[in-house]
């Protein structure tokens, strides 16, 4: 049979198909390799290498030019040349020597060789000899002889080798000696060119133009596919963080950050202006750099920034665009899309500070995270934490005023208008708007809202309790009142700002808004109420943070008379819609229907009077809207807040947020932004019953404020990396606790603490111009000296016990200041926390031992001299007991009588030595020159020993309280139970004769034992 017929297919044709198929497979395999090999990050690494070569070349050239210009280098070069020439001249002499050395070396090696061989023969013979001795004694003598000969030979050889070695080293030395100088010079050159040779080595490693041939070949080969497993140029860089775990749900894995694979210049300051992804980190002083608080090796990148550290391409790392434009750009450039499956996507740049919060949650302000700080402060100010539980703010006071005595303060009409639209009364109020919002501005909702407000007002007035208003002694003089309000320090927390203006999105601005804008008080309340409020705020509202300014009755009346002048015209005159019983019935029915049947509810409603219905509906509505979260309201003492808990809100994935029918980006930050801009927006397009509607009120935040708050919310995450959280030491805890109280009571409204605050200063400058007849420029230069003091170093400066007493019951230290430290309603916890805070801040123990100095007479005279007019003339500025300084009051300084109880003795020494170092810009002159300390004191006292002089002066000052601190004013002991009474007559004088009666040395006024109840004494133990 024919071969061909046995074949079903045409074999040559199959062969061709086979060939083509094989080629196709080959091609696809090559393609697969290429596709697998070409990774996005390799492109970046290549680009970075070129950049690096370029930078290194430039630096290399610059270094060389710099070196060439150095005179030392030029001199060295000359010396080198001379030395080289010298050696060249000696060259002919040395030739003979070198020849000899060569010969000697040959001889030497021959001898050593022979020695080695002979020794091995000797060892063998030794064995033979020993064997023979044991087995064949006759033969032994012959072998023994051989052995002896060999031993002799070895001894000779050893001698010869030693001689040859000695010869060689003497010859070698003569050669070496002639070159020592050159070698030293070369060594010197090396130290000079160290930097250059580092760069040169680097270039040789990376720059193909500078490489050796072997390196060039290696460079070409090492990155080829398959071979690149060994030691490639381009490889994934990673930082493994064993102490930070990524939660991948069913297990925890160490965090691995590969970001530096592409972001190659992140830690190198040379790449500041390089394009992304090579740009240097913008804050190397805080992050990434080795000596920063967050070095790259310990923190990585994603623990702060979020994102997927293990990813090695643009998308799988969960990059997030900062804006819509950037998103569009990325989509075009990288085919960017959201990487949904990663729970912690990167924070978009505007919210990047959110990453700080997880570890710094305890701090009140986080240095370097200004937006986050603003966000947190806005959350505090707006009282978000009142409705939304936030762990950080668990113990914070309610942000709104007490409403239990409302009728004594205002009218039903005012309350109605206020609830309807708070901003029409006070444009910058922090009370948010509940009604007429985007989901409740249709006619039906508006009609219902009107009745709801009626009901709430009814409840508030019905359930309130009596508050007895004390009578005013006089009707008050508004003119005087204006000056009191302007000068005493009210403007640290309040403003009087009738015009609508955009709030500055700064924390300083928020400090000035700590209390309400004092407009429209005449419309809102009465002079009598204001009088009673100012006289003792805690009587009306026990939880208030408004302090007592210790005003006299007349002053209080004046201030009340002034404040009540400001009215919002027509606010109370707008008509209030009548109560509509039908709608009220419906509201009551809606609420009752939740627990009772429709018929039962109807029957119950039929039994109630209109007022009862209103009160009932009001109570339910207050619960519904959560008014009680911010305000103290009767009947809601222990009710839980209504909002969603926000403690871990930043970890919520977008899937758990209801975007409703709003067409927008589905990401948490976009949702929070939208929610803050219009809290009711996600109701749009939904059909809901009135009580199902969203009810978060509108604060009308500006874009900047919204962004700051969203930053803070995004920072509220679960699973903070425990190993990186700021250590929970007693010191840190004390500082955090103190910061919290300082924030709550707005201490920074007046004082500068930790370098921040002093918000009152512009108001003081204004007062100087308006009431003290200063020019604008004078006011600016004077303002720091007539403002409340900067509290830098307070812990070092004052004694804890004094600070405790002072905070409890302040006494004037700087009587020339108009602005005064008010009496706060601090409890023992507050006081202890503050004392500990200041001590911890300056690294002091809370208590230091107080040594009572008995001064030897000669030291006393020396101190007296230094104090006197002839030397430092301390009394020129400082008040001493009841003696006032002669100059104008803005030059005055604190009373020495206070020093013994108030100041820490060691601080006084530091202070006299160099006041500028402790408090830059202080009025206190430098008597001793810190630059030239040893010769700056007067020579004729204590033999010119400066340290002794200062000590003696300090000791002298400490005696002053007793000896010269006699008082004209009678001392009045006070107790903590009646702190407000102290100030009335004794301490606060009339305006004409400011200081005389006011100067009260502390230890005479307040007997220590009485002020500090035993259980209130600050303890050195940290609170747990």
């Amino acid at each position, binding site marked *: 049979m024919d071969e061909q017929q*046995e074949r*079903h*297919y045409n074999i040559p044709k199959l062969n061709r198909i*086979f060939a083509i*198929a094989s080629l*196709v*497979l080959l091609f696809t395999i090559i393609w*697969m390799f290429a596709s697998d090999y070409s990774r996005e990050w390799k492109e970046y690494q290549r680009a970075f290498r070129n950049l690096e070569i370029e930078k290194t070349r430039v630096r290399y050239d610059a270094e060389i030019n710099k070196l060439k210009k150095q005179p030392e280098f030029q001199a060295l070069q000359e010396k080198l040349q001379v030395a080289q020439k010298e050696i060249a001249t000696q060259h002919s002499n040395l030739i003979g020597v070198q020849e000899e050395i060569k010969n000697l070396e040959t001889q030497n090696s021959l001898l050593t060789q022979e020695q080695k061989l002979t020794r091995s023969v000797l060892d063998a013979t030794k064995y033979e000899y020993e064997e023979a001795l044991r087995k064949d004694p006759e033969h032994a003598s012959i072998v023994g002889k051989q052995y002896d000969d060999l031993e002799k030979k070895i001894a000779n050889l050893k001698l010869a080798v030693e001689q040859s070695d000695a010869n060689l080293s003497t010859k070698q030395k003569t050669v070496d000696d002639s070159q020592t100088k050159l070698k030293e010079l070369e060594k010197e050159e090396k130290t000079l060119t160290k930097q250059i040779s580092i760069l040169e080595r680097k270039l040789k490693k990376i720059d193909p133009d500078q490489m050796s041939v072997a390196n060039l070949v290696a460079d070409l080969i090492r990155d080829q596919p398959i071979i690149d497993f060994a030691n490639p140029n381009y490889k994934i860089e990673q930082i493994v963080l064993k102490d930070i775990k990524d939660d991948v749900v069913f297990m925890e894995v160490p965090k691995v950050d590969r970001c530096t694979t592409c972001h190659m210049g992140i830690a190198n300051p040379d790449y500041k202006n390089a394009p992304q992804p090579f740009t240097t980190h913008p804050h190397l002083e805080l992050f990434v750099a080795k000596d920063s608080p967050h070095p790259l090796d310990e923190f990585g990148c994603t623990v702060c920034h979020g994102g997927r550290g293990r990813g090695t391409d643009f998308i799988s790392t969960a990059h997030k665009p900062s804006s819509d434009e950037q998103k569009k750009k990325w989509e075009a450039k990288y085919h960017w899309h959201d990487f949904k499956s990663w729970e912690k996507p990167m924070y978009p740049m505007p919210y990047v500070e959110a990453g700080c919060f997880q570890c710094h949650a305890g701090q009140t302000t986080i240095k370097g995270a200004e937006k986050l700080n603003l966000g947190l402060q806005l959350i505090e100010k707006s009282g978000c934490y009142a409705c939304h539980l936030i762990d950080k703010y668990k113990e914070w006071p309610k942000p709104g005023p007490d409403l239990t005595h409302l009728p004594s303060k205002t009218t039903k009409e005012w309350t109605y208008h206020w609830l309807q639209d708070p901003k029409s009364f006070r444009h910058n109020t922090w009370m948010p708007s509940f009604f007429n919002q985007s989901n409740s501005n249709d006619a039906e909702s508006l009609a219902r809202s009107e009745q709801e407000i009626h009901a709430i007002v009814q409840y508030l007035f019905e359930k309130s309790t009596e508050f007895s208003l004390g009578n005013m002694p006089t009707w008050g003089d508004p003119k005087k009142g204006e000056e009191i309000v302007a000068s005493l320090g009210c403007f640290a927390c309040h403003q009087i700002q009738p015009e609508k203006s955009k709030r500055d999105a700064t924390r300083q601005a928020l400090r000035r808004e700590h209390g309400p804008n004092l407009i429209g008080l005449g419309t809102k309340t009465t002079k009598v109420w204001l009088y009673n409020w100012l006289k003792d705020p805690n009587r009306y509202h026990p939880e208030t943070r408004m302090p007592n300014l210790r005003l006299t009755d007349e002053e209080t009346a004046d201030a009340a008379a002034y404040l009540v002048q400001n009215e919002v015209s027509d606010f109370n005159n707008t008509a209030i819609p009548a109560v509509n019983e039908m709608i009220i019935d419906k509201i009551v029915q809606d609420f009752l229907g939740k627990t009772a049947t429709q018929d039962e509810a109807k029957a119950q409603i039929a039994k109630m009077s209109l007022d009862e219905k209103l009160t009932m509906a009001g109570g339910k509505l207050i619960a519904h809207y959560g008014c009680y979260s911010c305000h103290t309201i009767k009947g809601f003492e222990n009710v839980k807040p209504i909002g969603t808990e926000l403690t871990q809100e930043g970890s919520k994935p977008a899937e758990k947020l209801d975007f409703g029918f709003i067409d927008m980006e589905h990401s948490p930050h976009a949702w929070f932004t939208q929610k803050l801009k219009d809290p009711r927006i996600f109701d749009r397009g939904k059909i809901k019953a009135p009580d199902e509607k969203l009810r978060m009120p509108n604060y009308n935040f500006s874009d900047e404020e919204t962004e700051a708050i969203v930053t803070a919310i995004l920072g509220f995450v679960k699973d903070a990396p425990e190993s990186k959280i700021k250590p929970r030491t007693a010191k840190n805890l004390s500082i955090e606790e103190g910061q919290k109280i300082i924030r709550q009571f707005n201490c920074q409204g007046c004082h500068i603490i930790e370098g921040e605050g002093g918000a009152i200063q512009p108001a003081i400058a204004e007062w100087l111009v308006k009431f003290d007849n200063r020019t604008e420029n004078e006011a600016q230069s004077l303002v720091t000296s007539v403002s409340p003091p900067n509290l830098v170093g307070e812990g070092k400066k004052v004694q804890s016990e004094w600070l405790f007493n002072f905070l409890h019951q302040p006494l004037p230290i700087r009587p020339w200041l108009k602005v005064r430290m008010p009496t706060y309603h601090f409890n023992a916890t507050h006081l202890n926390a503050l004392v500990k805070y200041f001590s911890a801040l300056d690294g002091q123990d809370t208590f230091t031992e107080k040594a009572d100095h008995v001064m030897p007479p000669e030291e006393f005279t020396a101190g007296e001299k230094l104090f006197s007019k002839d030397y430092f003339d301390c009394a020129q500025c400082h008040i001493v007991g009841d003696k006032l300084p002669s100059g104008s009051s803005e030059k005055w300084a604190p009373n020495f009588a206070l020093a013994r109880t108030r100041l820490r003795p060691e601080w006084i020494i530091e202070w006299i030595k160099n006041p500028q170092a402790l408090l830059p810009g202080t009025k206190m002159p430098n008597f001793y020159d810190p630059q030239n300390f040893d010769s700056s004191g007067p020579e004729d006292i204590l033999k010119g020993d400066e340290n002794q002089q200062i000590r003696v002066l300090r000791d002298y000052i400490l005696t002053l309280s007793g000896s010269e601190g006699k008082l004209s004013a009678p001392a009045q002991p006070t107790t903590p139970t009646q702190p407000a009474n102290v100030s009335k007559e004794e301490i606060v004088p009339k305006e004409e004769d400011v200081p005389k009666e006011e100067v009260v040395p502390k230890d005479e006024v307040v007997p220590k034992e009485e002020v500090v109840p035993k259980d209130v004494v600050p303890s050195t133990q940290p609170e747990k």
Partner: protein
Amino acid sequence: MEEFKHFINIISRPKIIFPIILTLFFFVFPPTDLLFNINQKLRLHKIWTKKGGIILFSLFILFFLFGLTDPNFKLIVTKPDNVPIVGLIFLTFFFLWYSMKQAYDNDTKIAEGKPPKEADDAKEKVLVWPDLVYVEFICLILCSALLIVWSIFLKAPLEEPANPAISPNPSKAPWYFLGLQEMLVYFDPWLAGVVFPTVIIFGIMSIPYLDNNPKGCGHFSFKERKMAVSIFLFFWLVLWVFLIVVGTFLRGPNWNFFGPFEFWDIHKLEPLANINLSELVYMIVLKQKLPTNILLREIGGILALIAYFGLLPILLAKTIFREVYNRLGALRYSIFMILLLMSAGLPIKMFLRWAFNIKYIIAIPEFFFNI
């Protein structure tokens, strides 16, 4: 075009498409002589000619290409997980057509008294090497190349570690289990997940013992094995491939049904208005309270089930299945009928659910026994 898409979306609803497919199927693959005659009269067998195949195939591709212009359709069809299912549709269609064409060609030949095409093949001698192995090897190479290219273009759709906080919606089984997952919509897990798969395996194992038709062996033929081919294709095409296609392309978030051109809206809600047979009988028809006695309550369903498995086989044996009964004998016939009726239970239940919102025929949640 929008109207057309809307129309397709509407007829894709199970309530409509399932009855259509069910009726159409038995005309295209007629199991009995009566239906076969109608099939011939309607000239439906013309599908299995070259011309018919090309026309149908072109229409199919045309629809697919048209679909790609729609963003929703494109999104679902081009998803890396779903691309193989698109391939499955085309391959199933092609091989179905190819085998049916050969079957009909053979049927014509046999009708003319000629031997089937395969008879010629048997005469020819073909060597393993090179005719078989060489060709297989070339196929292997080309398939490898195809898989490599595929993997370069469509990266393996691997995802991040599973996360209970973000469960994918819809959560879908692997494609080959989508039929089972679809069954879970209509039956309790013990039935859909345990009993039915077991019965399916035993049923397939028993086919050689049940089928004693000696005709059509060793060659493609439809006419000689109408019932066997029809039953097989019904389960393969309708209850397996169709359900996979439905599960892949038409089941969206919350396992809701979406037309091929519909946006997968996660908020779409469908009324949960399903009722049990007992409720239908007592509350809607008789307007009574449900009896407290379980047996009394479920008596309707129990009777229906008894009738279905007990009376129906007898009735069928006396009427249209008389011939089958005669050929198989009593024992084989009973096993065959039980298997057939159980399998038919699925489409029947699906139909009852879609058409009448029937949740369970027998609902005894007290004993976790729901059918």
